[in-house]
Structure formats: structure tokens, C-alpha cells
């Protein structure tokens, strides 16, 4: 296929990426700042990186954050995608109701969601916060985001495609797996990425549902504001960015991201 070029749009894209990464550049630079408080630049040092690995509190917080985020992404992606797909196809009048139910978690102020879950777990289960409670809380607020994205994609998809596959002899599950899923895949992936970002950074809802010994990275960081958010935080963020970048590069190298080609074939075959 002839690849067009649009230099104006490309220049624009570069600008937008620059905008997106500007604070990250600052963040990385300041991870080498020789200043505990990290407000003004004082000099170059590599010290924060080894100190980071000696900082048990921070590493524990990171571990909890990842435990919660991974659980949140896995479950919310499954449940959210199902909702998104179901809603896109739903014809009945209950649709408006289901729509509203979907939007409610997003519309509710975070403090109300956080406190309501605190009350819920406290009154009904006498629970005082824990990693499990956090996981449930995070899954709950991520579902809607995934569902909205998947629904947008599913709405643009012809429902008869599955029908056609069934006509050609595929089972219901097979049709789902080989027709619907590949088409929805980008939306599901997008939802997963959004969910991860949401969960990783959540503060308000987490505050009310973390318990003794289950503090997350945002809680740790906010707790440090009063006494100085040291460059260790910058260092760990830099490492996360670096690790992710390497992972992406590796995945790209081995052609996984070229999976878009395969779905294109499906598109073309489907007409």
C-alpha cells in the first residue's frame, strides 16, 4: 500500500510528543539532583539510585502498588470488555439504565467512592484495609474506563460479522475468538493501559482502603511532601520508564506490535 506522507501533521505529532515528554525529561534530570528537597538544582549526583535500593519502605510500597495494579488491570479488563461489548449490542430499553450504571463510578467524586468502600468493608466485614481490599477498590473504578473504550470500538463493528462466521461453521466461542476479539484487541489493550495508569497513580481512593502495612507508592510519596520528596522518587520513576521502554523495544523487535497487520487482514477478509 502506498504510504502517504504529511509533513505538517508529522511535525504536529512531534510537538505533541514533546509536550507529553517534557515533564518526564525534567523528572529524569532531577533524579540526579544533589539536593534532598529537590526544588532547586544543586549539582549532579548518582547517589539516589543506590539509596533507592536500600529504601525498604519505598520498595515495599512499590511492590504493593504493582500487586494492586496488576490485579486491577487483569480483572477490570475482563469485566470491562464484557460490559463494553454487551452494551454496544444491547438493543433493549434497559440500555439507558446500564449506560448510567456504567458512568456512575466515574461521575462519583473520588472521596465519596473511597469513603463508601471504607464504610462498606468496615461495617459489613469489619475489615480495616488490606491489599485485597485495595485490589477490589481499584478493579471497581477501572471497569468503567475499560468498558467505555471497548464500547466505542465495538459500536463501530458490524455485529453480523460474528453471524457470518457462525454461518461458515464456527462455534459461538470460536466466532468470538477469531472474529470479535481481534477487532476489539486494540480497544482492550488501550483499556488495559489506561487502567494501569489509573491504578498505579491513585491516591484518594487508596488512602481510605489501604491498611496497616499495605501502603502504595502514591501514599508513600504524598506522605513525604512535608519533609521533602527526595529524588529517590524521581529515580524510581526513571527506572520504571527505562524498563518499560526496553520492554517495548524488545516487543517491537520481535514483531508483536506488528499484530496490527494481522487484524488488518481480518478486516479486509470481513469486507
Amino acid at each position, binding site marked *: 500500500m502506498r504510504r502517504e506522507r504529511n509533513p505538517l501533521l508529522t511535525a504536529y505529532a512531534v510537538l505533541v510528543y514533546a509536550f507529553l515528554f517534557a515533564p518526564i525529561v525534567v523528572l529524569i534530570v532531577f533524579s540526579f539532583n544533589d539536593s534532598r528537597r529537590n526544588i532547586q538544582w544543586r549539582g549532579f549526583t548518582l547517589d539516589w539510585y543506590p539509596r533507592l535500593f536500600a529504601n525498604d519502605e519505598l520498595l515495599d510500597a512499590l511492590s504493593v502498588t504493582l500487586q494492586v495494579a496488576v490485579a486491577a488491570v487483569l480483572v477490570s479488563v475482563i469485566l470491562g470488555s464484557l460490559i463494553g461489548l454487551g452494551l454496544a449490542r444491547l438493543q*433493549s430499553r434497559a440500555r439507558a439504565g446500564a449506560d448510567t450504571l456504567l458512568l456512575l463510578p466515574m461521575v462519583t467524586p473520588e472521596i465519596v467512592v473511597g469513603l463508601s468502600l471504607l464504610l462498606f468493608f468496615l461495617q459489613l466485614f469489619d475489615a480495616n484495609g488490606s491489599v485485597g481490599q485495595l485490589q477490589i477498590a481499584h478493579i471497581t473504578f477501572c471497569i468503567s474506563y475499560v468498558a467505555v473504550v471497548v464500547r466505542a470500538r465495538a459500536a463501530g463493528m458490524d455485529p453480523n460479522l460474528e453471524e457470518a462466521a457462525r454461518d461458515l461453521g464456527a462455534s459461538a466461542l470460536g466466532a468470538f475468538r477469531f472474529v470479535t476479539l481481534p477487532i476489539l484487541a486494540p480497544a482492550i489493550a488501550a483499556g488495559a493501559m489506561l487502567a494501569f495508569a489509573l491504578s498505579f497513580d491513585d491516591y484518594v481512593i487508596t488512602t481510605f482502603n489501604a491498611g496497616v502495612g499495605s501502603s502504595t507508592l502514591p501514599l508513600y510519596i504524598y506522605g513525604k511532601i512535608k519533609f521533602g520528596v527526595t529524588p529517590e522518587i524521581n529515580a524510581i520513576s526513571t527506572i520504571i*520508564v527505562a524498563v518499560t521502554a526496553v520492554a517495548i523495544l524488545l516487543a517491537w523487535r520481535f514483531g508483536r506490535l506488528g499484530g496490527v497487520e494481522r487484524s488488518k487482514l481480518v478486516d479486509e477478509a470481513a469486507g
Partner: protein
Amino acid sequence: MTAVSEAPARTQTRRVSLAERFGGLRQWILLAPGLGWLVAFFVVPLVLIFVVSLGHRDELDRVVLSNPSLDNYARAIDPRFIPTLLNSLRYAALTTILSLLIGYPLAYWISRYGGRHKGLLLILVMLPFWTSYLIRTYAWMIMLRDNGVVNSVLQAVGLTSEPIILLNTDFSVVLGMTYGFLPFAILPLYVSIDRLDPALVGAARDLYASGRQAFLHVTLPLTMPGIIAAAILTFIPAIGDFVTPDLLGGASTTTIAKVVQELFLEGRDWPYGSALGFFLMLITLVGTFIALRTLRREVVGA
């Protein structure tokens, strides 16, 4: 699309009617687990908070439910909150519009010109947001403060002779919020744009006089679901965002979300805070529906 094979009419009819019946049921089977979870872990807790909102405080700031009433809701309609409410709506609206305007061309570019690298480019959009929110915001503070990078550049280039106050203003708040919500707009937009059949776009080009018209009359309406999704994912959370205006804002940038927060924590008035929270939810829902209807009308109507 409906390239139906020449199957015997009898089988065809039976297939359709079965599908129809199953269609409805199948949708509900899909919806059940997710909706069930939301009912258990969202609706039920929300009902608890609603019950709280009907109660009162005693002198020890404990919740008392003996005389349930809607008093707190009446109190929530207080003209004192109007400036903060307007702030929230203003910031959310600006953020949404800017995110859509900035995000759409980028999503379009990735979809049309990204080629083999589409996935990579998308992940690149998300990558900055897998770092700590607070540090990103601090980075903006470092850039925007009086002796920060932006002011230095402006002065070096000669546009200004003195540092201008960029931080702690409406400008910095909207900038920070737009930055924070941009990926929430880009991703759904991309997902919808990428669905476009290039043949359709090509056909539109042939039919309409200019590329611009083709865009307005064909591309834009067809990507409506994505635009709606992007608007929802931006506007709604933006109304509830109180941290960004708190950190990047100044003396006059208080939002209604912050007021709710304060009522709960400083005022220790859970019933009142809950009522105000619900009130805010109501306003957000109404605002969203109006915004979406306008969006649909403007874009599809054009």
C-alpha cells in the same frame, strides 16, 4: 456485510429467530459479571453513603440516623458554592475541549501514518503516565515558576523583560489538567479512528470538493463513538479532579471537589459531605448528557 449465502430459506429463518432471541440473552450474559461486580462493590457502598447523607451529625461528629431527612440536600444548594462549582465546570470544559482538539490530530496521525509502529506510538503516549503523578506535577511547577524554564526562554527570546506569573493561575491549572487527561482522550479517539475503512475515506475524497469537507462530512461523524468516549473519559474525571488545581492553582482556583473533600475531613460532617457529593454527581451527569447531546448535534448535524 450482509452477504448472506444462498442457504435454504427454512434454515435461514430459523437461524435468524434463534439469533434474535439469543442476541438479547447473550448480551445480558456478557453484561452480567461486570455489572454484578459493580452492583456489589459500587452500588451497595454508594447506598451506604446515601443512607449517611440522610442522617445528621451529633456533637461528637458521629453519624446519627434516627431522623432521616433530606435536610443536607437542601443545605447543599447554597449560593456560596456557585463560584467553586463554576470553576470546576470551567476547568473541566476547557480541559475536554483542548484534549479533544490536541488529541484528535495525533490519533489520526498514528492511525494513518503510523504503519508498523502504531502500537509503539500508542504506548509512547501512555509511557509518561506510568510515573508518579506528583512528580510530573512538580516537574510542571519547576518549568512554570517565575525563575523556571519557560520564563527563562521567554526572556531570552525577548518576548518579555520580567518573569510573568504563569504558575498558580487558571492557565497553569488548565495546562496541568489537559496534560493529565490527554491520553484519556487520545486512546479512545485512536481506537475509533483506526476502525475507519480507508476505502471510505478515499471515496469521500472523490465525492467532496476538498479534503477538509471529506473530513467534516465523513471522517468526523464516523468517529463519533470515539469522540464521545474521549469526551466522557475527560470531562467527568476532570470535574472531580481537585489535586491538580490544588497543586498548580492559586488563591482563586478552588474547585467544588475540594470543597467536598474539606467538608468530609475538616468539617467532619459526613452526612453533609455525602449529600454534597451526590449533588455534585447529579450535576456532573446532567452536564455530561447536555455536553454529549450538543457534541452529537454539532458534529453529526454538520
